[in-house]
């Protein structure tokens, strides 16, 4: 499950409870900057063996999940 993996990676990075991260969570509210988000996306890309476009429109966890699901749905 993409949400689980994202929670796990974020929690590792900022040392928080994975359960505190929801789809509505904004990356900016986690105190991580855009390069941290990029690093997170890169880990997701490795995990799911996909390539994602990263830009400022990736604001919430839901945005990231949507991008992953659209890539993995294409197979």
């Amino acid at each position, binding site marked *: 499950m993409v949400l689980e993996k994202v929670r796990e990676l974020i929690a590792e990075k900022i040392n928080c409870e994975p359960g505190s991260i929801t789809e509505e969570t904004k990356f900016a509210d986690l105190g991580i900057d855009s*390069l941290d988000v*990029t690093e997170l996306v*890169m880990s997701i890309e490795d995990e799911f063996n996909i390539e994602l*476009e*990263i*830009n400022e429109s990736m604001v919430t966890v839901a945005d990231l999940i949507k991008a992953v699901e659209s890539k993995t749905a294409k197979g």
Partner: protein
Amino acid sequence: MSFSIIGTGMYVPPRIVTNDELSRFVDTSDEWIRQRVGVERRHVCTDETATDLACKAAVRALENSGCDPKELDIIIAATVSGDMACPSVSCMVQRRIGAECFAFDINAACAAFVFMLETAAGFFERGRARKALLVGAEQMSKIVNWEDRGTCVIFGDGAGAVVLEAGEGYIDSVLTTKGGDEVIKIPHFIGKSPFSTQKPQEPYICMEGQETFKYAVNAMCSDIRRLLEGNGLTLDDIALIVPHQANKRIIDLAAARLRIQADKFYVNIQDYGNTSSASIPIALDELNRSGRLRRGDLIILTAFGGGLSNASCIIKW
């Protein structure tokens, strides 16, 4: 037959701009810049141009090598921030240092220094050169938009040069291009043709920061792995990795993904910012003059940038 590096030189303009000074007219802060990029200060040109910086670095490299300009068989330079489209920086360097050989520039943006080494290697291999001068020189302050806090805090001005002589020091290289202008571009002045229907673009560097970061980290990791595997080497065989100084966070993440200690990478971005094609030769000069490298050390140079291009090599010092 390839080459050995027999001399290095660098020059940065004397005017230093600290993050604090920058914060007085750009909406940024010392803390943000240090944390996001790793830069603390940068040198900027006042009355000097990329050609001036190039000539000074070249003279220092020639002195360091003990080579007379008239011994040079070839001069290659690189810049994305030159004073003129023509004559090229290398031609002006040739004139001003009193050399008599042919000279030309290449354009591979921040990866240019390794592209220049690769180009020079071909001339040495064919026996067409015994001594070469390579220069990376940048006046980045001219091509950044000082109202764009995302880019103007990153870059700095400077030049680095190396003198090469025939030898066996160029062990292996890997060069890659993924052409496109969506991630990094520096448009030229569009001109004033009465016939042109093109839209004017600002002649400043535009960078998609996140995509650039991702590309750079992946490029560095992939190149280093490829060079090591291709030559039956491990990181223990490598004395030092000298990366293009684009952003400290790129170097840190690459080190983490490669599972290398951070001190295996040489970092001086805090003092100069990103000086594009000059960053690696500036680092080499610092390493050379500090005596940090010993003859026979294997070092990896790894560069990446607009194009998009990345190029890395193993050098025997």
